[in-house]
């Protein structure tokens, strides 16, 4: 990890990481979601880093 970010988006991301307010996309799995603890979500947000709404750019 470097602090030498040159784009505003990465500056904001670093700040969110530092403040502990970021939710890494890869953390978006597991059952404890929005008041529905125990619901078997499995990996529907596809686990590791992945844009949940991404699609084909073909």
């Amino acid at each position, binding site marked *: 990890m*470097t602090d030498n970010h*040159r784009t*505003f988006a990465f500056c904001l*991301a670093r700040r*969110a990481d530092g403040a502990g307010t970021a*939710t890494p*996309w890869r953390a978006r799995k597991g059952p404890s979601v929005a008041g529905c603890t125990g619901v078997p979500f499995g990996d529907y947000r596809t686990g590791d880093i992945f*844009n949940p709404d991404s699609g084909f*750019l*073909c």
Partner: protein
Amino acid sequence: MLVLDRLGDAQVSEAAVLIVTRSDDVHADRVGALIAARGEPCFRIDLDRFPRDYGLTMALDETGWSGTLFCRASGTTLDLSAVRSVWMRKPADFAFAAALSPQEKAFADGEANHLLLGWLNSLDCFFMSHPVALRAAGWKCEQLVRARRMGFAVPASMIGNRPDEVRPFIAKGADGAIFKTLSTPTLAAEHVQTEDRIANGLHTTLVQVDDPELDSIAALPGLFQHYIEKAHEIRVTVVAGRIFAARIDSQANERTRVDFRHYDAEIAYTAVELPEDLATRCCEFVASYGLAYGAIDLIATPDGRHVFLENNPVGQFVFVEELAPPLRIAEAVAEALIAGG
């Protein structure tokens, strides 16, 4: 699964639903199971296993490309000339049997992509949604123009890389402005090796005029929008003209007030009916691209307005139907694919 039956020398097959996705797509798992449960043939291409785990033969005849695509893992075969509908889900990096040099890999990626999309574009069947429509529908800048033209309220927006212009724009916002990415909230993390990864993503973020790092916008133009006060948010999923709307009480938790996509925060999702004119506008917006599916994010303001944020042409929906169970979106997707439109 599609089975090729032999009647004499002729191969007879029932037209199949084709799902183009990746192996970790649980949306495809769910919809594929629903299609199978109805006894309908369904074939899935997992791009992260293609072409390595598939056997392909296709030949041009008077009707188009015919031949077979055999999946070694499942032992099933798709008759290329018998595709009823195609569900374009998620992209993935292709897989090749051999370790290829960087140049060979780049060439192979291009060839596989050209083959796949070339064949798909030659099909005359129902798509959810067609690659050309998906390509046209994915640009946030264009979506805002179209949404406003079609009667939606949209946030005051600017894109730029001049701090001296960005600051006055932010200052004009009563509650500041948000910064959001145009291409991907993952900050392209999935495109670099782990050791080169310096950030995992960025949610929509509230920024103020005196942000100490705002000058860094000079390196890359970014999208800013005046912050819209929210009563709640609405995720509107349109499936072949059917509407599924979920109210998201994002203001009930500090972490989801600016961006609801902190899925570990406990907020309520509730199925709701949209006002008829709003529902119609959402359907018309999706249809205006030729899309058969869209997931639209709206803000509901305290004074009762609805503000368009964006449309996700291949947006996720399982989290919506899990959290607002009356919304049976997967069933609607399966039904549309089986019906072929």
